């Protein structure tokens, strides 16, 4: 009973957040200057007809909301407009049908573009996050266990340094190092048009391309995970129940495994979920540096080209993913920590 109420509450809150994000996303990009007739194409010699046609195609000929023709510049319009015939309503309506609009830049449905890029990004971020979490936590556990020893200080200093690295800077340096030393590819996801005898060779090729960006990503995020793991584990290991466990005669490894890690994972779960939002900034830099055809690179390009529908779609996707990840984290939290269900 309690559990399902907790679940419902969390899901309800997540849905509400999604709704707010949708509205925010809509209005933010309506406040921005520029529309496809100016932003994407930038040719004042377009005929008036062509401009009108473009605006119509992107639905910009409709008022933004009742009483407002446009938000930038703020132009008041009739308040008697049929609310169903406003950009807001059409936007939300399209969203409900799974349509995210058409990119100013490529004229393609944003959803199609996102679908193509998402998996590449998931592959990159996924691989890197798994590595970063694995090594970061491992290092954090080691450092916490050996608190105040040379091992601890070395790991701590290394992690802090990793954390301090500007992502794209590290990327460029690794790019040159990797391509000069090991002949690793400098960009792309695979060798285009490569002839591969087996699927394995094809995967190996992708792996070679994936190596440097993953390494960059892993290093940048490893430090943070290590620091958090170390600090929470230090807290947990100072708890009385650890002493109890030790008094019970349990061996150190057993205590770490059965009593410390699950408790220390609680904050980690939340951090990992929240971090998903921050990985985007990292993805933008790394994908641009390594020409990785993912969401980040697409966002970088869309920022430069003012491709608002694309940005809007990408940000909605990211925000929803983060909200969803947080929801999962909350549920996982309630699974890991029996106290939560009662609260």
């Amino acid at each position: 009973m309690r559990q399902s109420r907790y679940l419902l509450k969390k899901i309800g809150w997540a849905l509400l957040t999604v709704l707010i994000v949708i509205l925010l996303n809509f209005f933010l990009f309506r406040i921005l200057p520029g529309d496809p007739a100016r932003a994407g194409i930038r040719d004042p010699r377009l005929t008036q007809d062509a401009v009108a046609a473009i605006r119509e195609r992107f639905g910009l000929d409709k008022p933004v909301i009742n009483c407002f023709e446009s938000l930038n510049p703020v132009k008041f319009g009739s308040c008697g407009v049929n609310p169903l015939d406003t950009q807001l309503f059409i936007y939300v309506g399209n969203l409900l049908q799974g349509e995210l609009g058409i990119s100013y830049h490529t004229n393609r449905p944003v959803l199609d573009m996102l679908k193509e890029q998402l998996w590449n990004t998931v592959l990159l971020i996924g691989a890197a996050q798994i590595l970063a979490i694995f090594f970061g936590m491992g290092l954090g556990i080691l450092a916490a266990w050996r608190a105040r020893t040379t091992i601890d200080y070395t790991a701590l200093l290394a992690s802090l340094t990793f954390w301090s690295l500007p992502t794209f800077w590290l990327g460029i340096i690794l790019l040159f190092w990797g391509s000069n030393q090991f002949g690793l590819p400098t960009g792309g996801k695979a060798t285009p048009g490569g002839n591969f005898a087996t699927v394995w060779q094809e995967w190996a090729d992708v792996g070679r391309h994936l190596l440097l960006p993953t390494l960059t990503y892993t290093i940048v995020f490893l430090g943070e995970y290590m620091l958090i793991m170390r600090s929470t584990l230090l807290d947990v290991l100072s708890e009385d129940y650890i002493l109890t466990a030790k008094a019970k005669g349990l061996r150190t490894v057993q205590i770490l495994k059965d009593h410390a890690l699950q408790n220390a994972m609680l904050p980690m779960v939340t951090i990992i979920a929240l971090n998903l939002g921050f990985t985007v900034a990292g993805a933008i830099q790394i994908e641009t540096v390594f020409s990785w055809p993912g969401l980040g690179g697409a966002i970088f390009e869309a920022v430069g080209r003012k491709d608002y529908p694309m940005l809007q779609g990408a940000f909605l996707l990211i925000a929803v993913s983060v909200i969803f990840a947080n929801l999962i984290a909350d549920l996982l939290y309630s699974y890991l920590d029996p106290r939560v269900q009662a609260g």
Partner: protein
Amino acid sequence: MKKIVLKLWLFLWIAGLLVACGGGETDSADTDSSESADTSSETADSSDAEASSSDEPVVLRVGWAGSPDTLNPGTAVLTEAYTIFEVVYDSMYQLELDGTYSLELADSLDVSEDGLVYTYHIRDGITFHDGEPLTAEDVAFSYNLYASQEDFPFLPVYTEFFDTVEADDGNNLIITLTDAIPNIQSQLIYLYVLPEHIWGGLEGAAVAEFENEAMIGSGPFKMVEYAQNEFVRLEGVKDHYLQGPTIDEVVFQTFENQDALVQALRTGQVDMITEMPNTAVVSLRNEENIELVSGPPLAPSVTDIIFNQTAPENCPPDDGLCTGHPALQDRNVRLALAHATDKQQIIDVVLLGLGAPGLTLIPDSLGVFYNDSLEDYAYDSTLANQILDDAGYLDSDGDGIREMPDGSNPLNLRMNWPSDSTNAPRMAELLAGMWGEIGVGTQLQALDPDALTATCCPTFDFDVILWGWGSDPDPNFLLSVMLTDEIPTGNSETGYSNPTYDALYLQQAVELDQQARIDTIWEMQRIVHEDVVYIIPFYEQSVQAFRTDRFTGWQTDAGKIALEDPSSLLVVEPVR
């Protein structure tokens, strides 16, 4: 349609987007390397990714910094898209690297006495890549599609003077114009011929949203695989009706990071690169197995320093703020600034020497239209100071900045540029230093391109802007930018107004005699130069590099540099 001559002049900001790549394959008659068709069986160099067994296809890899925005010719903007169109599609004319046009799809042309009816005879036996024949019907269909499709933002303007376009039974295409125009070639080069059996089935909004990833064309390369923002993979059409390429495949790969692009060439991941930072030039020159070429770009572009010189009476009544510094309306001030601008210094620092000093808004890459007889204002800050002194602009309060002759309004100029430009900030710093030497102050501010557009025109809420244009091979559009009539439309960036110039413009637009038109255009450039409407700091050069250990035969001695152009792609062959 009161507008003067409406053409597609894709106009672009300095920064990234160089547009509208023309380009042509060599004329069919004098193909000089047709016997090399069987070189594909020869092995490619085996140093890197290329396998050496003889049945491996010969793949040429081109690295570039961009990616086509779309493969739909009706909505594409970026150079990269036009490069692909150029090799996959055919059009009526081909623009050669020397700036001349040759017939491509047609083998002959008849023009009526009054210059209104053009009859092209389409070559027989041309097929699309899917095997369907290409006839005059397809050409007529394409032209009419471009003319009627209102969701195509640019292309309709190319068909502005078309009255009717029809195909007859003899595989002829008959274009009837509404007015006689001097430059039908440049009107037709971007009207790529599309297969009616594919595009004919599309209606309304579907036409503009057609992604066209299968891209059935009739050019020397055919589309094999396309991944947006990753690569374009094309296969050579060996039995092309004009000339088939020697290589089996060409792959255009995108590197969003220019350093990675250069590095990819160094490590042999690609065989040739088209866009690179000028700063890489020095180190690449010393690199083994890499050759660097530079020259005027195939797609002409120009960088300009814009003075807001809008006279109060010309201020657009609706949108105009016209806050330009009054001193800029004085030719003496503009002249002094021109003399105070060390173009070579700018070229050295901003372009690392890879540019030519600019002269007029018509760049040198427009060939015959470029008036190279003009004498530039020499860099001479003493002279510049003298001019300002004589004109009464003195530094009366001793703060190092001159004031207006009446002692008011110090010559402090706002200088703006688009924030996405990588060259402009450096140029702005240099100009600030140079102009400071003659007592002209500057306030530097980068602006978001949209904000810059809003400040620029027709608002005229600025003093100096560093910006640029891309251009068609025909100068008509760039000339129109300085017309009085264009002040309220937002095309005139300077607010310049000169009735003589306006009259000459109308004259060249209908002048059918090529030499007479050129003379008029030269005269127009002289007038504008005389009035110091702009300072044109430089004409940028295109820099490209390729590996000499992989392919040979690149066209490097033509008037323009475009290794990714069919002119080169058709003739390169692997090193044995």
